[in-house]
């Protein structure tokens, strides 16, 4: 009898093939569930999935748009990996992104009539600074007052949103912008250079790839990466090894905030070109899924950011061609994360059929 019942047993060794397999399983299941939802809604599932996942990237322009969306997602997700590896749940990247945009964008607005090669680098620095400072708040609250970083970092998202809102309807409002709540457009030297003529994919992509490579190096080759991992797995073991827990928490938050801030600056100085209320379609939250889907691994994050970026484009196309609300993208993202987490069982445990003696 027992022979045929599957049982769950702990794995003795990390299996790298399973690490690849799990996201794949999750994607396949998400697509199956997605087509089921589409059929229930009365759409042809094949056509819907085609509209959602194939047609958006069937042109060069579409592919460039994919990279435009994947850039901030990958950048924030790689930053989040520093936190998640350390078992810190910073879910306020959206706020850190907003602050980065405010700081960096502020520089552009201050120098609205000054051009110079130094302007963009200065904005980049300000963007990193803004994001880091905003991330430093939950970090200090956690290390000094033991507050739950999930809640504080999230609350700060809304505070940052209101600050941006205040600025674009108040002091930073474009004087010639009629009643629209937006800032002056940035001047040419405050804009991220485009990589190819006529396509929106911009220099932020290069920065992102460089930071992904550096992060890969840090995670796999340095003692700092090891420290993040160990204290994420076991605080006691990290203390035994003599790692400074508070320092790690603060560094992870600062790095993550810096990356998110840079992503925010990349958006406003790249495709957007000014400050206004809706600078981000929830990139900061979606990046959480990107990070998990990429299994907190830099290479994985490159792939997962492309996949999730596709759900953004697909949702836009689905709205236009199928009259499905674009929020359906969130459903795919949520489902993907569910399946991924469920399939992770395979990483830590083996499903065994029958018995081995």
């Amino acid at each position, binding site marked *: 009898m027992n022979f045929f019942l599957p049982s769950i047993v*702990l794995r003795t*060794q990390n299996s790298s093939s399973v690490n690849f397999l799990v996201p794949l399983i999750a994607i396949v299941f998400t697509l199956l569930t997605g087509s089921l939802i589409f059929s229930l809604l009365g759409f042809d599932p094949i056509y819907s999935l085609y509209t959602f996942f194939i047609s958006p990237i069937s042109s060069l322009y579409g592919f460039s748009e994919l990279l435009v969306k994947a850039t901030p997602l990958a950048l924030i997700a790689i930053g989040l990996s520093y936190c998640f590896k350390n078992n810190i749940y910073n879910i306020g990247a959206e706020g850190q992104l907003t602050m980065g945009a405010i700081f960096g964008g502020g520089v552009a607005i201050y120098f609205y009539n000054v051009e110079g090669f130094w302007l963009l680098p200065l904005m980049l620095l300000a963007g990193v600074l803004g994001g880091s400072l905003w991330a430093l708040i939950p970090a200090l609250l956690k290390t000094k007052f033991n507050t739950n970083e999930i809640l504080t970092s999230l609350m700060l998202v809304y505070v940052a949103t209101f600050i941006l809102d205040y600025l674009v309807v108040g002091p930073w409002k474009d004087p010639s912008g009629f009643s629209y709540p937006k800032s002056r457009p940035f001047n040419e030297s405050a804009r991220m250079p485009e990589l190819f003529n006529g396509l929106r994919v911009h220099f932020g992509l290069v920065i992102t790839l460089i930071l992904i490579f550096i992060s890969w190096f840090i995670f796999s080759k340095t003692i700092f990466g*090891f420290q993040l991992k*160990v204290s994420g797995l*076991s605080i006691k073991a990290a203390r*035994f*090894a*003599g790692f*400074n827990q508070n320092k790690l928490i603060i560094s992870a938050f600062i790095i993550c905030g810096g990356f998110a801030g840079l992503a925010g600056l990349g958006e406003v100085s790249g495709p957007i070109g000014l400050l206004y209320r809706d600078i981000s379609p929830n990139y900061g939250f979606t990046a959480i899924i990107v990070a998990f889907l990429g299994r907190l691994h830099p290479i994985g994050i490159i792939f997962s950011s492309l996949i999730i970026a596709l759900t953004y484009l697909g949702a836009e196309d689905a709205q236009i061609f199928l009259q499905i609300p674009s929020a359906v993208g969130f459903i795919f993202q949520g489902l993907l994360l569910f399946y991924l987490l469920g399939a992770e069982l395979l990483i830590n445990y083996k499903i065994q059929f029958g018995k081995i003696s």
Partner: protein
Amino acid sequence: MGQFILDIQNISKSFPRVKANNKVSFGVKKNTVHAILGENGAGKSTFVKILYGLIKQDEGKIIYKNNELKISSPAEARKVGIGMIFQHFSLFESLTVRENLMLGIDDYISYKKLEIKIENLIQKYKLTLDLDAPVISLSSGQKQRVEIVRVLLQNPKILVMDEPTSVLSPQEVKSLFITLNALVKDETTILYITHKLEEVITICNSVTIMRDGEVIETSSIGSNTAKTLANKMLGKNLEEISKDFSAIKDQINFEVNNLSCKFNDPFFTDIINISFKVNKGEILGIAGVAGNGQTELMEILSGENLNIESGKILYNNKRIEKLNPQQRRNLSISFVPEDRLGHSAVPELSLNENTLLSRFYNNKFTKNGLIQKKILDDHTKSIINLFNVKCLDADSNASSLSGGNLQKYVIGREILSEPELLIISHPTWGIDAGAENFIRQSLIKLSKLGTSIIVISQDLEELIQISHKLSIIYNGTLSNTFNTDSIDIEKVGLLMGGGK
């Protein structure tokens, strides 16, 4: 009716990597104390879990009161009269004693009635327990009393006790034995699981000896002695351990003066004015019943807790109380805390990665913040070879090793870095006799090379066997030091229980 209240017939149980029980058969007579004796990993716990309905056997049956016992949960076991006292108290720390007791009653009667039932029982057994105290505030002896009362509430016919004395002081053990004798008179059969030979001789009427999942023998205690039981339990003679006082240098290596640390936290024991010295090449044992400040002292000695209130820690006459574990390691001090999984090793990481947890100036695992993979790999391989660690390879996860092998790995990792001082807590806790002997030998060998060693342990026999000097920790204070070659066991027992 047969002569047995419990007749075990050919019980087998396999787990993915081991056959934990192989055709286990024996009988238990009514109203006796029956021991199941075996070293760690002999299959005792597996058998007990089957008897209590926590897991199901693959084959075989248990005849209980002449009927086949068919249970699939502890609740059913309790219903037919089988009660269980666990080795690690299965109490709910932040709930009160009363609430803990109520959880042991299966009937869904009203809250009021439950309370009355408990009051009556406390009266009947004249047990001094503060019903409204949260369990964390109790001593180990009191906690065990709560466990016993909780089981007694259901009038069990068979009481299973898994290593009941492992956290008790010698005095508490005596009073436990008095209770057990009273219970046997009261028509209770006791199944006593242990690996301590002396206890079998003292309290039990008969004994089943298990080894490698099989029953070696079941007999009445009669002519058995500790020596004969030991041979049957181990199945082989282990290398005799002998220590050597000649290697001790007349030079103080490590000294603690008037160390105090207050926590204001019921989960911790305050450390009060502790002082001791260790010479080069000397092994100092710190004995005591669990929960008397050992963990707290260990964390201060390792530098994991730097918030001491007062006192000095001197190492080669240099004050180190402000240094963190890494800085202390840089001075060639090495640590092995009690908990293998999640403290001295990370279960989810490979052995290679675990080696990196303990960096010494001489092992060169990192250079300018970069991990030296090759050096790390070689080091891990030598730990595995020299310390006889059974594992697939250096990339195996720590969690895949047995307790004994992981402990050998951890201790090997520390010893191979040639520390001048090793501070180790419970070196052989919960591991098999072979690994235990190997580790004790390794510690003695290390001390002969001039390393000073501080061993914190609950196992008094172990400390007397390997250490040169011994102190007793009780309620956060440390006794004077005794020489172990002229020690008065009676007195040590008294000190462990808080006597003077």
